[in-house]
């Protein structure tokens, strides 16, 4: 039998919607955007050791107009919150948000402070929450793959 791989995989039938979702989920481009220490883990996730490029979201864009995923990595202070909202508004649809770390989820250790927003979901809508202080790069990759499943309309489990 001839086993030469010639790149031809025959005919696949699918809906256009499924094909779009598949493409969208595998080309998530995050915004280069870090607020505090969680950003270090986000950078580690992007680096060679953990290499999120395997899941199709390696290109951190420097402009919100070119990105479709915002990883809110680090404590959102009240002073930063209007800027976060403006950056989110500048992103084109479809756009997704991952809340990374307990500070972003509900305030974390600063929950009794005067200066910290108690959850970024008070400012912008969040798709996936990744808990941890900070979450490991593996946890964040799990969050991204969860988001990809959600975009494809699959079950989270």
């Amino acid at each position, binding site marked *: 039998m001839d086993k030469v791989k010639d790149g031809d995989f025959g005919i696949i039938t699918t809906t256009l919607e499924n094909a779009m979702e598949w493409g969208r989920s595998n080309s998530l481009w995050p915004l280069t955007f870090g607020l505090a220490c969680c950003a270090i883990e986000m950078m580690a996730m992007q680096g060679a050791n953990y290499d999120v490029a395997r899941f199709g979201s390696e290109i951190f864009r420097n402009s919100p107009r070119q990105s479709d995923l915002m990883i809110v990595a680090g404590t959102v202070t*009240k*002073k930063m*919150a*209007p*800027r976060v*909202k*403006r950056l989110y508004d500048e992103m084109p649809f479809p756009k997704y948000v991952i809340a990374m770390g307990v500070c972003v989820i509900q305030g974390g250790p600063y929950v*009794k402070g*005067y*200066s910290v927003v108690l959850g970024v979901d*008070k*400012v912008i809508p969040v798709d996936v929450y990744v808990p941890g202080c900070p979450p490991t790069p593996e946890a964040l990759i799990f969050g991204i793959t969860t988001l990809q499943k959600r975009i494809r309309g699959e079950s989270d489990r």
Partner: protein
Amino acid sequence: MADEGQQQVDKAGRQIFKVPKEKLLEFMRARKDEGFNHLSLITGVDRKDHIEVVYHLHSVEQDRYIVVKTTTNNCTVPSVTSLWRSANWDEREQWDLMGIKFEGHPNLKRMFLPESWVGHPLRKDYDLGNVQYINMDEDGEDYSTFDPGDGW
């Protein structure tokens, strides 16, 4: 130097000088002439009945580090911006967060929070229940508000 102010030594072996605020400027000028050319930090301590202002001075050439403390009952202390230019922002920070007024400061505005913020958040009597929010207007200027509004 030993004749001026009360003197103690802290755990790290640094000399602590307690100076009344009327004599502060004179004392600091003498320390600067002595070679303390780096004002490392200014901070405030809320002791409820009075406020303590702490200055850390460092001499780069002599490798010496001293702590100067003064107290105030009415939240005013003379400014040392005329001696060390770096005191400008340090004193603005203390005004912003502790509400210590520095007399003679050239530009005593808030450092971090918007001007419309009510209260000084690191004071013991600051009301945390009265939540304030920060919004941004069209020009990018911050303003504080008690009403979350659309921006939140």
